[in-house]
């Protein structure tokens, strides 16, 4: 494959960023918006071409029918030593091609959607510039040929996410949310960096082709190296996974994602639902051949994922802000993907249940990107109509916004796992993988799936049903403009049919094509649970009734904890402000000003004091000098006389 198209895929968004960033202020809103869309549209076409060539072109199929990993180009960017080299390259394999499709699709739709949503906003051009920057960084991340390139993309998406969350920079909440997002993910990136250092130092390479192409060689490099009772490989992989935990908002580093909803809604759809937050999943999937060798690390992933999934689902049941609900739902769904990846491994390089979990995770990543983007964009349309994030301001909107209503319903059905919508298929594969790994995890995840269906339908009913919409000040909610509806309809259509893609033919852990078989028992259980949950939600929330209030009164403590997100934010507030800020920074600053600086000042003061003490001798009183002179002269005379005499 010639490198022209891949280079263009990366270069066009970067160029658009520079163009809009530097000259955007001189452009009209319309021009900037359409330029952004044009750039992203071109990238979309090129990415589709690339993915098509990869999957169907036939050039990338090996002797056994496996899909090959292909490095299209790889240029040295910074050479640390002869072996440790950061290159900037473009790697095409089954998952990066998949991500190319996902990212460019969602990004293009969001570009289009924003034409309507962001119309007339101050800083419209800046918004498009940041979107382009984000798309560039995300694409750089997924096509990385080496782990350091991925880290670079990783940092860049973090920064663009920071800029976009803080887009409404005059709002305090947006500023602190963006700050929080950046710092929390930065903290996770520290783990990632240390993981990279451990890994690269032991294996002497950053290159994915070497790391993952021949994992046994790398594992031998780690042989016998342990640290605090765990093998060094496990440490490296867990540290790298920490980076993924930060970006993918796993517990306990999830706290930034709900706050990140302060950004414009299309941004939430793009970054905080479909693309950036799955970077952690992508990272683990990318390094999967290595994770296969550390059962401890994958078990850690499963445990973190399972806890996060349940926690987020619980919290989502009690939120008022519709974007927060969706944010927690995202956390929960990403945790599904993480669990799926974890349960695909059995350690010692062996996969569990034919590596089904790997495929399922990628499948879910794909379908989730579509339906979660749909839900977020739908939420954007709602917010655009009522100018509030709370469902209390919505209620009964179905009559006013029919298209949004239908598409949102499709999204809810998809995420709840109702056939034949896409979520059903991908989630079913995850369940099958979980049950195969350990029944406890299977049951646990089934419960979470039930909760998912419940809170999504709770949200759906509270927005569109519950009671008649109260029209305030004569502002009738209106359906969104066309640029916003096209993405909604398109994504809804994708969510309806994506489940029927024979995904195993495109992505599998060993790159061999593979037929998906639905496990009807598990599917049956999942659907039953989902339907029951939906029925409960219907009973509770379809019409205004006192049942939810009664439930709340029944379990006030649980409600409180869920509503306050189990007080994680308060805990972090305490740690950062009370312990780190007041407990470390202030004492250090005090120490610096008073002890270190004090010592230096004291040295100066002592010098000063000493000179003051002896300056009395230099009185300037000529009479005293004469006295001293006289006495001295007499003494000398005396000495002289004595010398002569003796």
């Amino acid at each position, binding site marked *: 494959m010639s490198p022209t198209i891949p280079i263009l895929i990366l270069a066009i968004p970067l160029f658009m960023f520079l163009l809009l960033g530097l000259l955007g202020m001189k452009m009209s809103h319309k021009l900037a918006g359409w330029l952004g869309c044009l750039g992203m549209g071109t990238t979309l076409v090129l990415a589709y071409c690339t993915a098509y060539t990869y999957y169907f072109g036939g050039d990338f199929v090996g002797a056994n029918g496996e899909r090959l990993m292909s490095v299209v180009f790889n240029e040295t960017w910074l050479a640390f030593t002869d072996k440790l080299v950061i290159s900037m390259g473009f790697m095409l394999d089954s998952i990066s091609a998949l991500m190319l499709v996902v990212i460019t699709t969602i990004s293009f739709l969001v570009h289009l959607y924003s034409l309507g949503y962001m119309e007339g906003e101050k800083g419209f051009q800046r918004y498009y510039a940041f979107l382009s920057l984000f798309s560039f960084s995300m694409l750089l991340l997924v096509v990385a040929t080496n782990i350091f390139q991925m880290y670079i993309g990783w940092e860049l998406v973090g920064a663009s996410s920071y800029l976009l969350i803080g887009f409404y920079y005059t709002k305090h909440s947006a500023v602190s949310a963006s700050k929080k997002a950046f710092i929390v993910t930065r903290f996770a990136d520290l783990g990632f960096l240390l993981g990279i250092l451990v890994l690269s130092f032991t294996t002497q390479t950053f290159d994915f082709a070497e790391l993952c192409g021949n994992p046994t060689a790398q594992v031998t490099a780690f042989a016998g190296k342990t640290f605090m009772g765990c093998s060094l490989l496990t440490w490296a992989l867990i540290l790298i996974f920490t980076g993924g935990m930060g970006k993918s908002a796993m517990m306990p580093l999830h706290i930034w994602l709900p706050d990140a909803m302060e950004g414009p809604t299309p941004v939430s759809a793009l970054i905080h639902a479909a693309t950036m937050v799955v970077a952690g999943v992508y990272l683990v999937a990318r390094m999967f051949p290595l994770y296969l060798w550390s059962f401890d690390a994958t078990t850690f992933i499963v445990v973190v994922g399972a806890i996060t999934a349940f926690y987020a689902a619980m919290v989502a049941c009690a939120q008022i802000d519709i974007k927060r609900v969706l944010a927690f739902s995202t956390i929960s769904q990403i945790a599904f993907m993480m669990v799926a990846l974890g349960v695909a491994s059995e350690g010692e390089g062996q996969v569990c249940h034919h590596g089904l979990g790997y495929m399922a995770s990628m499948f879910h990543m794909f379908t989730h990107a579509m339906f979660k983007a749909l839900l977020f964009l739908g939420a954007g349309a709602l917010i655009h109509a009522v100018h509030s994030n709370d469902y209390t301001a919505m209620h009964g909107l179905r009559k006013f916004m029919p298209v949004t209503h239908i598409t949102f319903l499709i999204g809810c059905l998809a995420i709840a796992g109702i056939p034949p919508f896409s979520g059903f298929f991908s989630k079913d594969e995850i369940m099958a993988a979980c049950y195969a790994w350990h029944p406890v995890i299977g049951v646990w995840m089934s419960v979470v799936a039930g909760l998912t269906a419940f809170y999504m339908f709770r949200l759906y009913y509270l927005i569109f049903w519950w009671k008649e919409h109260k029209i305030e000040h004569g502002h009738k909610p209106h359906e969104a403009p066309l640029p916003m509806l096209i993405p909604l309809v398109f994504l809804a259509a994708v969510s309806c049919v994506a489940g029927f893609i024979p995904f195993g033919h495109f992505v599998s852990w060993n790159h061999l094509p593979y037929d998906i078989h639905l496990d009807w028992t598990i599917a049956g259980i999942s659907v039953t649970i989902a339907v029951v949950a939906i029925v409960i939600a219907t009973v509770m929330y379809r019409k205004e009734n006192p049942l939810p209030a009664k439930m709340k009164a029944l379990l006030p403590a649980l409600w409180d904890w869920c509503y306050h997100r189990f007080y994680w934010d308060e805990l972090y507030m305490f740690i950062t402000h009370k312990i780190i800020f007041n407990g470390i920074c202030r004492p250090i600053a005090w120490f610096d000003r008073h002890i270190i600086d004090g010592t230096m000042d004291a040295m100066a003061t002592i010098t000063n004091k000493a000179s003051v003490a002896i300056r009395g001798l230099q009185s*300037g*009183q*000529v*009479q005293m000098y*004469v*006295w001293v002179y006289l006495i001295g002269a007499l003494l000398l005379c005396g000495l002289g006389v004595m010398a002569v005499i003796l």
Partner: protein
Amino acid sequence: MEITLIFWLVPSLIMFCCGVYGFITRRNMIAMLISLELMLNSVDINFALFNRYLFPGQMEGMFFSLFAIALAAAETALAIAIILNIFRKVKNVDVQGLDTMKF
């Protein structure tokens, strides 16, 4: 009784010691200046004496005395000028009180 060198030197020494005593003890600058003049004059006397008694026929000592007298006059004029100026500024000619410029 022949008047020898010592007869002249003793008054000169007394004069010098008076000068030293005055210089050390007096706080008034004018008085100190006068004491200084006393010391100078005693030295002048010594010059003249030693020339007269030890090197008769030569004139160096005399010249020195004359020079010193002239210089003393100039110096006195200068000192008086300074003292007057100081007095105009601070209304005080006490050396211990003049520490404005110190440190």
